[in-house]
Every structure is written in structure tokens, then in C-alpha cells.
């Protein structure tokens, strides 16, 4: 079908508000669109996760389109379906061809539809084990168990002092091994400045996506190393130590970055953010 004709299908659907009220040709075109996007995302999920459940591919065009149309209906009124206005408004404010933009937006919606579908039918949450590693890479990977803190009884004061000493020693070692990029990332995080801010990227000499990865990798490696060093301890104790080590590292980084010219802009931003949040700016 010609581009203008396909665009005309979307326009007709918007005008009549429900696919069932549109011509047969329009129904066929848009159902095929929904089905192809649905299957594309499901296949992508299979390819990336190694899942072998083939049931979702049995969904036909009618099912896929129904899932698409129902996904964002807030209520059964024109107002409740304002996602359709959003699709066309995107086209109005974009320099790209309208069909690309409308179908691009519909594809984004379809991705969420597939996520919802897979969550319900293929990967229900209750098969997620609390002991399953969060990242691939061996027995020292973090698990769900590791993420949730226990509440520490205050009577553990003496034990906490030992933890503090362990944290100081390890935190110093971690800090000494950190690259400048890692330190800048931690500095930004510790001062509440976004890792994507230009001043942070400039100070780190890095792109946004790289810096984000650097920061998270540092934290994952730090946590995994501690877990590896204390294999016989429960996850709550290991987490308690990990948090203290992170605090120690942040403290060292804040000291290090305090007088660095390349980090001056980060400190200014941190001060401005604090000023805005406290409402004390004139």
C-alpha cells in the first residue's frame, strides 16, 4: 500500500475512534501493523533471553490490535483515549515524515503492550527466585536477597564498630584504585548532580552513557567483591558492610574533589540545587 494510503488508514482510525467502524482495508492494514510489531518484540525477547515459549506467536492480528487499542484507554470516552491525540501531535511537531512519526509512536506503545503481555503470560514474577543472580557472571553475583536490607538492632553497637573499621580499611583501598572518571561519577552522585549534566561529563571527559555504566559497574564490582570475601556471611551483614564501604568511598571522593578546578562546576551545581530545594535563593 502506498505511503499516503497507509497514513490515510491511521487518519480514518483517529476520525472514527474505533477500528471496527473503519473500512475493511483500514482494518486489515492496521491489524497487520499491530501484529508485525507484536511478533517483532516477542521474537526480540526470545532472542535476548533464550526463552522458548512459542505461545505468544500464536496471537493473531485481531488480538494484537485489540491489545494495542485497549492498552492506554483511561476510560471509554474521547478524553480517555487521548493517546490518539498524542500520536498525531507528535507528527505535527516533528520534522520527520508523519507516517514515520505516527507509526513510531504506535510502535513505542506496542513495546509496552508486549512487555505487559510477557509479564502476565511468559515470565510471571513468582518464578523469580530470590537466589537468582541479578547479573550473569558466576556465583558471586548479587541476588534479590542481597538487595533488601534488614533492620539492624541498635544493641549491635559493638559489632558495628568492627564494621566501621572494616569499612574504613576497605573504603580507602577502593578509593586508591579508582580512576578519575569513577571518582567524578561518585562525586556527582554524592553531591546530587545528575551524571548526564554537561559539567559532569566535561569533568569526567566522558559521554553520558559511558559515565552511567562506569558508575554502576563500580558499585556492582564493589558489592560483588565484598560478597566474595565474606562467602559464609548472611546477605544482611554483607549489605551492612557494603553500605558502610560505599559511604567511606563517598567521603574520600568528596575530600578529593573539594579543591579540584575540574570539579568546581559540579560543586557550584550542587550548591545551586541545594539552594533551590531549600527555597533560600533570591
Amino acid at each position, binding site marked *: 500500500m502506498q505511503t499516503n494510503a497507509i497514513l490515510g488508514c491511521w487518519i480514518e482510525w483517529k476520525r472514527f475512534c474505533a477500528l471496527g467502524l473503519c473500512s475493511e482495508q483500514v482494518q486489515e492494514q492496521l491489524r497487520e501493523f499491530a501484529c508485525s510489531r507484536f511478533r517483532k518484540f516477542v521474537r526480540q525477547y526470545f532472542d535476548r533471553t533464550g526463552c522458548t515459549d512459542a505461545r505468544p506467536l500464536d496471537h493473531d492480528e485481531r488480538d494484537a490490535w485489540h491489545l494495542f487499542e485497549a492498552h492506554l484507554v483511561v476510560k471509554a470516552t474521547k478524553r480517555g483515549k487521548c493517546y490518539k*491525540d*498524542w500520536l498525531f501531535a507528535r507528527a505535527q511537531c516533528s520534522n520527520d515524515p508523519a507516517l514515520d512519526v505516527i507509526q513510531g509512536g504506535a510502535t*513505542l506503545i506496542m513495546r509496552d503492550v508486549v512487555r505487559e503481555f510477557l509479564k502476565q503470560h511468559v515470565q*510471571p514474577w513468582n518464578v523469580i527466585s530470590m537466589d537468582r543472580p541479578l547479573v550473569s557472571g558466576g556465583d558471586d553475583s548479587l541476588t534479590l536477597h542481597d538487595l533488601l536490607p534488614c533492620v539492624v538492632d541498635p544493641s549491635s553497637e559493638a559489632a558495628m564498630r568492627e564494621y566501621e573499621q572494616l569499612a574504613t580499611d576497605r573504603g580507602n583501598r577502593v578509593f586508591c584504585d579508582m580512576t578519575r*572518571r569513577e571518582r567524578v561519577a561518585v562525586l556527582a552522585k554524592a553531591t546530587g548532580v545528575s551524571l548526564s549534566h554537561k559539567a559532569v561529563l566535561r569533568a569526567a571527559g566522558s559521554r553520558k552513557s559511558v559515565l552511567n555504566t562506569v558508575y554502576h559497574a563500580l558499585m556492582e564490582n564493589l558489592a560483588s567483591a565484598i560478597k566474595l570475601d565474606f562467602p559464609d556471611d548472611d546477605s544482611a551483614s554483607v549489605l551492612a558492610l557494603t553500605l558502610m564501604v560505599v559511604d567511606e568511598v563517598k567521603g574520600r571522593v568528596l575530600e578529593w574533589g573539594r579543591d579540584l578546578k575540574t570539579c568546581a562546576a559540579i560543586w557550584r551545581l550542587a550548591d545551586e540545587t541545594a539552594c533551590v530545594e531549600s527555597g533560600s535563593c533570591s
Partner: protein
Amino acid sequence: MKLPALNLDPAPEWQKERLARWLAEWEIDRSLADEAGGRSNVPDDRNHPGVGDMARPLSGEPEVSAGQIRLLAPDICGCERLVYVAVLRREPDGRFLFAPFGRFSEPAVPGELLTGRDTVCLRVLCLWNAQTVSADILGRSWLADELTGPEIKEAMAVYSHVIEGGDLDSELEKRTAPPLIHPADPRHFYKDEENGLVSSLAVGSLVWPERADEERELPMAAEPPETYGSDDVPGSGEDPDGDEEDRQDR
């Protein structure tokens, strides 16, 4: 070596279940992340009769008021997804406090509230990401629905908890997210992504000498020019992280 023993109370079951549900959905979401797609070779059809007036004009929408659920127009938050927001209250200066709805079906981080609504896009309200903006900016949106009185009350209770701390009603607490404590928790990634979602609206409406993200910095006179890092990805090549240069520069 073994760590000294601590007396610990474990996390409640509902927190573990909620986190497991969220992680399951997050992992699916990551697997569906699009690879960069190029434009198709369709001819420019912006002048196609019918496209221009298909979206309901924003000028015809009701004025912004507390208690509304609105869908932000795509040209104001610069993001590639639909963003529904709850308008929570009108401030004394005439601006409006609002919070975005999340894209997952479970609260992820503290300050997110399970609303109880069935509609996929309105299941979780992200009070930690609440912002205050002018009616002009927030008005660039379509009215989708209205919050009920109890919904507003619950949202404000969680918002106050985010801002001021203190305890939440226990039933309300069970509709929020587990604490975000571990530095390697994947929810940090999620929060980083969501952080910029609506903050650009708030910056645009503040009376502020310069936008934070447009700040231009001049080099110091005696400072050698900095070179930006290469397009390094961990493990991608020689000194991919610039670590050698980093270590010399510590």
C-alpha cells in the same frame, strides 16, 4: 574471615514479592529495548491533508486544576513516551504541583504508590518525581480523567512522606516500594532514567538566571585544554576507560 554477628530483623515478605515482580518486569523491559532504527524512505508527507488537524487542539482543553489526570503534549517534555501526570495541588504562587505516573505495574523506588487503578498507564504514581510548574506549561496537555478524593489524599500523604520523612500508614506503606539501599540495585538505573523525565519542565518554568543544563563554562586562563574521553566502552580496546590518563591525573 567472618563478619561480627548483627541482630537483624529481615525485610517483610511483601517487600520481597514486590521487588521480585518489579525486577521481572524490568528485565523484560530491558530485553525489549529498541536498537537504533533508521528512518524509512517514505516521502515527506507532512502536507498530507488530514494530519494537521487530527490531534485535538490543546487550546480547547479545560484549564489546569488540582485533581486532574492529564497527558502531556509530546513537544514539552521531550521524551519518547506518553507521560500521564496527576495534578496534586495549586500552590500559593499559582503554580501547580504534579507527579508523573510510572510505566511499570509495580512501585519501584520509595515514593512510588500503587494507585489501585486497572489502567496500565495509571497504576503507579511517582511522588518522588513530583515537580512544580506554571499552569502555562502544564496546560500543554490533554485532560484524561479525574482523581478521586481518596486518591488525592493518599498521593499527598506519600508526597509528604517523601519530603518530610516520618511514618506512613501501614496499609499505605504496603502500596509503596521497598527501600532502595544497595548501591548495585538495578532500580538505581531506573531512577536515573526517570529523573530527567519531567525535571526539564520544572526548570523551564522557574525564575532562574540560567538553565542548569545550558550553563556554559569558560576555561581558566592557565588551564590546559581538556580532551574529551574517547568513545570508550568497558573492554572495547586499549585503555578503553582512559584509566592510564586517569591514574596520572589523580
